[in-house]
């Protein structure tokens, strides 16, 4: 069916990508051999809803691929096939392929069909072999099924999609759309079509509520439907058809037993349905979560109270089942607490969050930034006023300032996301890498809920990937080497994030071999980076690995060893206003600690004056401020002025010379020196005086003017004047350039 749904594509993509992330996480946690049935079910539902959406929007390739995937998953969740390592790998590959397909479709680019077709073929082969071959090591998910001689017992509740009409059970469905259903692109035509795939569907439309043509709100759905589906399918298959519309409709789904139908064979399937419920608690456990899930949907809960949902899911209303009814009905109660599927709960219609485009938020932040500036201007003005009203005015301004600060903080928080968004890619990566390198690695993650600005979060992803990759490739040793060293054969890579005094610290820790300082030093010497007789501190040795092109890996793998990476890591971290530290002990492991600012939009700055101008020096770059005595300054030929600072000689950069300003003081002892650092180097900035410390909102130079070396951005001060925010790394480069030129 060709529907006009283009405007809903973006939410389909967003939701699908999210669902795929969830599916990937679930797959990674899947135990080969004894998978958690609810987990398998969750994975199945992702494939199913993507298939549904893709079908509805006419993305045929995606729908076709997910259909094949769904078939395999259906075999797995019904226990007809066992989850093997190969299958789990193929499923993970499927996540990649689906992501790639959806990305291509979203960008309206051609899909790499060869890859898709290859994998689809593999999946079909797995299903074909599974169906013809061994019946899945007798469904480890449901041990009780092995006790039952009939393998069909396991298959019945999940059901094959093609139900034979005559002896199939019936589902009675009442469907009433809520006003927004059609506007959200949920079309009953598509929903009913997917139901029709499950079996024989009879649709009766009720037009009673449809007003006269002239008074119809044409975008609203007034029709209600009574549907009857003849199918042996499982309840969640029926649910799945309504999944996309769940929040926009009132739905009752009841199972009518097959007993009523005429076929004598009807007794058998009915008995099969009961069997696992009565005799096999593990299978019942597999059924119970579905019940919970149904009850957890607010829409459904309104129509079908949990008790009746439980009853309908447990089915078996006849005499053989009374014992089963009790536990099945009791099951929902404790379960909702550990509902493991947040995505599902969200789809269930709790309007606890909304999607907002990042542009809108940035616009909001920008406006708040402007407000802060206006408020600062008013405060400035307020100080100059006198008279009786002035006092009231000032107290009003104080109130305004407090409110502004709160507003600014709240708005900033909107941009904050938990670091789990970045961490979530690691389980997969670690698993794949470990497999490829033949290592055993356990990934631990803590502090995933630590929140970070979205931009910082996006930019920190790649550096973290490099570091984790390095830990796995260089840090963690091969299992036999580890055993010889008296360690467990499984190495541990630990990712941790936490708040640390207005900053976020992200730590990558491994219990591998640690950095081998002698090897690093030997390598550095052989490349002439370090003199043969130079003695380096640990920190200086660690610094070496951040040199471009530095690698001690004996052979270049496709994982790492080309020496690109650590310098890029450091540069990225620096660009974010953060820093990276290393702690390492040979034989014990390494720790890489990245410290990042909470946000990029505000900086804590020290304002300094130079002539009539004000500059902001980020507080994080300031080491100390001091007044120089004339005798402590030396002139070096070609390097300008230097002064002695704690055993080091630091160059002096006169800001007024750099920026071409008429200063108030030219003699060094008349002004002040701000010792600041950038890129691991320190300089003394010569300024007229220090003004005060304040938080400033960064305005981009690139966006409003153009990039300026040595300047990170600009801000507007309380008096309305513009102050440049200094970028120390850039400034040091510029200063070095001018010093050489001089």
């Amino acid at each position: 069916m060709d529907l006009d749904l283009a405007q809903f594509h973006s939410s389909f993509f967003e939701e699908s990508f999210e669902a795929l992330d969830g599916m990937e996480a679930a797959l990674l946690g899947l135990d080969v051999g004894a998978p958690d049935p609810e987990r398998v079910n969750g994975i199945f539902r992702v494939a199913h809803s993507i298939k549904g959406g893709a079908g509805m929007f006419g993305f045929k390739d995606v729908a076709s691929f997910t259909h094949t995937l769904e078939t395999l998953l259906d075999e797995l969740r019904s226990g007809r096939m066992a989850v093997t390592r190969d299958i789990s790998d193929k499923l993970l590959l499927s996540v990649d392929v689906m992501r790639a397909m959806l990305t291509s479709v979203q960008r309206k680019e051609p899909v790499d069909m060869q890859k898709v077709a290859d994998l689809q073929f593999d999946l079909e082969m797995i299903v074909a072999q599974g169906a013809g071959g061994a019946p899945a090591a007798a469904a480890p998910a449901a041990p009780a099924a092995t006790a039952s001689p009939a393998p069909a017992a396991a298959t019945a509740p999940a059901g094959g999609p093609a139900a034979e009409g005559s002896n199939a059970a019936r589902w009675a469905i009442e469907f009433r759309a809520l006003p927004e259903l059609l506007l959200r692109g949920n079309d009953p035509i598509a929903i009913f079509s997917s139901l029709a795939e499950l079996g024989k569907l009879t649709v009766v439309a009720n037009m009673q509520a449809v007003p006269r043509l002239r008074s119809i709100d044409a975008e609203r759905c007034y029709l209600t439907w009574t549907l009857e589906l003849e199918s042996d399918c499982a309840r969640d298959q029926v649910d799945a058809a309504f999944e996309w519309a769940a929040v926009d409709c009132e739905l009752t789904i009841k199972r009518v037993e097959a007993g009523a139908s005429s076929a004598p064979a009807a007794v058998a399937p009915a008995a099969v349905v009961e069997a696992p419920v009565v005799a096999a608690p593990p299978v019942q456990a597999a059924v119970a979560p579905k019940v919970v899930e149904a009850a957890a949907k607010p829409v459904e809960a309104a129509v079908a109270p949990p008790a009746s949902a439980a009853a309908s899911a447990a089915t078996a209303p006849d005499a053989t089942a009374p014992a089963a009814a009790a536990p099945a009905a009791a099951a929902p109660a404790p379960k909702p607490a550990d509902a493991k599927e947040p995505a599902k709960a969200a789809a269930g219609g709790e309007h606890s969050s909304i999607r907002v485009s990042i542009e809108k938020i940035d616009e909001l932040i920008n406006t708040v930034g402007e407000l802060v500036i206006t408020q600062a201007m008013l405060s400035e003005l307020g100080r100059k006023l006198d008279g009786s009203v002035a006092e009231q005015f000032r107290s009003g301004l104080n109130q305004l300032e407090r409110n502004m600060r709160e507003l600014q903080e709240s708005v900033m928080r909107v941009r904050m996301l938990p670091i789990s968004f970045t961490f979530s890619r690691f389980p997969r990566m670690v698993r794949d890498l470990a497999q490829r390198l033949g290592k055993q690695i356990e990934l631990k993650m803590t502090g995933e809920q630590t929140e970070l600005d979205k931009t910082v979060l996006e930019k920190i992803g790649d550096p973290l990937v490099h570091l984790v990759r390095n830990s796995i490739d260089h840090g963690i040793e091969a299992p036999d080497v580890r055993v010889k060293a008296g360690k467990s054969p499984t190495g541990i890579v630990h990712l941790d994030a936490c708040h640390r005094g207005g900053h976020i610290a992200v730590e990558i820790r491994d219990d591998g071999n640690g950095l081998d300082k002698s090897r690093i030093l030997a390598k550095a010497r052989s490349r002439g980076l370090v003199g043969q007789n130079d003695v380096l501190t640990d920190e200086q040795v660690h610094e070496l690995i951040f040199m471009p092109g530095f690698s001690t890996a004996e052979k270049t793998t496709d994982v790492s060893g080309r020496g690109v990476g650590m310098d890029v890591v450091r540069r990225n971290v620096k660009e974010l206003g953060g820093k990276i530290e290393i702690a390492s002990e040979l034989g014990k492991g390494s720790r890489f600690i990245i410290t990042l600012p909470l946000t990029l939009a505000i900086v804590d700055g020290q304002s300094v004056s130079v002539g009539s101008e004000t500059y902001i020096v980020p507080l994080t770059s300031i080491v100390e401020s001091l007044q120089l005595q004339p005798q402590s300054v030396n002139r070096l030929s070609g390097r300008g002025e230097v002064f002695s600072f704690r055993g080091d000689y630091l160059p002096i950069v006169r800001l007024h010379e750099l920026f071409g300003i008429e200063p108030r003081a030219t003699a060094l002892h008349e002004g002040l020196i701000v010792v600041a650092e950038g890129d691991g180097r320190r300089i003394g900035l010569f300024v007229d005086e220090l003004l005060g410390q304040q938080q400033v909102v960064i305005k981009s130079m690139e966006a409003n003017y153009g990039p300026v070396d040595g300047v990170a951005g600009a801000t507007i001060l309380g008096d309305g004047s513009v102050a440049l925010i200094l970028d120390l790394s850039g400034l040091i480069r510029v200063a070095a350039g001018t010093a050489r030129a001089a």
Partner: protein
Amino acid sequence: MSIALVLTSPTIRTITSLQTELAERLDESGPLQIDATAVDRVDTAGLQLLAAFVRDLRAEARTVEWVGCSDALQKAARALGLHSALCLPGTTEPGSDKN
């Protein structure tokens, strides 16, 4: 006999103009012919409106004759259980072949 109502794509995108057009048709008198041969897209909003239209016509004792009906419309009407409400030709009638 009035001029046949020609449908193209009765979907939620075009629903407002369709509603206006159908309301005007309600003011006419006599039997109405609907030509849905060219309907390639249709959705629930479109079919709901058409069903209300057909019902209101019949309430005024006017008759509806489909002079052509595309597969897309037939399928969608059947999927929604609105086939008879729309007085669509039965499956045996070659409705979609006519023009």
